[in-house]
């Protein structure tokens, strides 16, 4: 124990014992912070305390000194627990570096390119709740007037999810066509997931394909959150549902496919359950809340709308995302 620390402790303690002001305690607590930073353990604090009192009040009865000795002994295990914290913090730091690197690799590995199609305005936002994003969006487009999009949520987070996503990406790549129909896309990816991954890994996925020449959106779902259809002429909202098992449950799963034709200003809002299952202190966020948020910005570009919905929902949840948050808007302009 450095001597200047002991001297300072004695001085602060002496002030307090004499005057007992809040100021003394404030100084003492600031000092305790410094002690922790210098890895001074609680048993050393007690020992320093005993020495300081002994110097100031040497005539106290023996019971006082014995009682401090006992406290020192009691604090040894506390001191060890604190040292453990130090090494845990260090390990967490290392893991963080690894995670950052992995998130980086994942990002470049899984990156997707927004389709650029006349008459279609696309907005996209995907915010992970933790380091790694368990939601996945992948666009398929080859400048032939089609824009496919897969919105997937891997059940399970972190690493296993990330590995699973790279599988989905390469699966989609292997289809290699932007006019592949939703039910076929879902069947193919279902077989890949079912075959390659262990039994506890499931994926929900919404696949939609937009044909610009017909302004027609065809969609299917594998156990995924329904999309929202906004009609500009009526101002009404509808859910786009399609039946289908989660990917990876059964190799024989079949998927429905439905179509809607979009008018000017109409929007299809696709999302993961992180958007709808956000929780505030008052309970789950109702779909109506989301409708209202979209309505507020309905005349703005798709990207502004997704950003607005996110900002507001984040605020309502006290900035604590429970789940990855992903929102894609296809807006006919």
């Amino acid at each position, binding site marked *: 124990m450095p001597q200047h620390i002991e001297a300072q402790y004695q001085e602060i303690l002496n002030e307090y014992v004499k005057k007992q002001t*809040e*100021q003394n*305690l404030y100084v003492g*607590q*600031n000092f305790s912070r410094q002690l*922790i930073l210098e890895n001074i353990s609680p048993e050393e604090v007690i020992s320093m305390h005993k020495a300081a009192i002994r110097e100031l009040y040497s005539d106290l009865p023996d019971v006082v000194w014995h009682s401090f000795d006992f406290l020192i002994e009691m604090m040894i295990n506390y001191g060890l627990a604190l040292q453990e914290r130090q090494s845990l913090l260090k390990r967490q730091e290392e893991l963080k570096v690894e995670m950052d690197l992995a998130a980086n690799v994942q990002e470049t590995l899984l990156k997707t390119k927004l389709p650029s199609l006349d008459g279609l305005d696309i907005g996209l936002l995907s915010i992970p709740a933790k380091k790694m994003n368990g939601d996945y969006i992948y666009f398929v487009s080859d400048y032939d007037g089609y824009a496919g999009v897969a919105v997937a949520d891997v059940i399970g987070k972190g690493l296993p999810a990330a590995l699973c996503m790279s599988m989905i990406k390469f699966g989609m790549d292997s289809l290699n066509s932007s006019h592949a129909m939703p039910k076929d896309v879902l069947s193919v990816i279902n077989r890949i997931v079912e075959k390659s991954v262990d039994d506890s890994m499931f994926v929900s996925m919404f696949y939609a394909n937009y044909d610009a020449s017909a302004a027609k959106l065809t969609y299917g779902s594998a156990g995924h959150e329904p999309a929202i259809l906004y009609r500009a002429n009526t101002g009404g909202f509808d859910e786009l549902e399609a039946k289908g098992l989660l990917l990876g449950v059964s190799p024989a799963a079949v998927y429905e496919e439905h179509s809607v034709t979009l008018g000017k200003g109409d929007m299809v809002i696709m999302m993961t359950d992180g958007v709808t299952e956000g929780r505030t202190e008052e309970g789950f966020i109702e779909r109506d809340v989301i409708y209202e948020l979209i309505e507020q910005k309905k005349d703005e570009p798709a990207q502004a709308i997704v950003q607005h919905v996110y900002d507001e929902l984040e605020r309502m949840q*006290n*900035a604590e995302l429970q789940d990855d948050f992903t929102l894609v808007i296809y807006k006919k302009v």
Partner: protein
Amino acid sequence: MSDQSSVEILTEWDIVAARQLGRNVAKELGFGTVDQARITTAISELARNIYLYAGQGRIEIQQLTENGMKGILIIAADSGPGIPDVRKVMEDGFTTSGGLGAGLPGVKRLMDDFKIETIQGEGTDIRATKWLR
């Protein structure tokens, strides 16, 4: 029902005044020595955050009575720059390893209930409650 009083935070001395106010209220409500010290530490942290990062602000202490329970509410409000990444400052080890003390995760642990609202460029409002058991 609530009873309130507050301290403006401008200098480091005001941190001590806020601590004193909080400790008095906590004692009056019947909190024991350890809880008094915890509540005071939480106030200290919040006041120090204001002093260091917002420059100025206010600590308000309210006595609460709810469903027959008594409690203390600390409000720390400032019009500072706001916290850019709340999730990050709420992370363990983020503040402590930087030597900034208990930090906000510490305040959360010292109290029973913790809420934070922050808007960039507008300021931060933190509310922390502790109930008497």
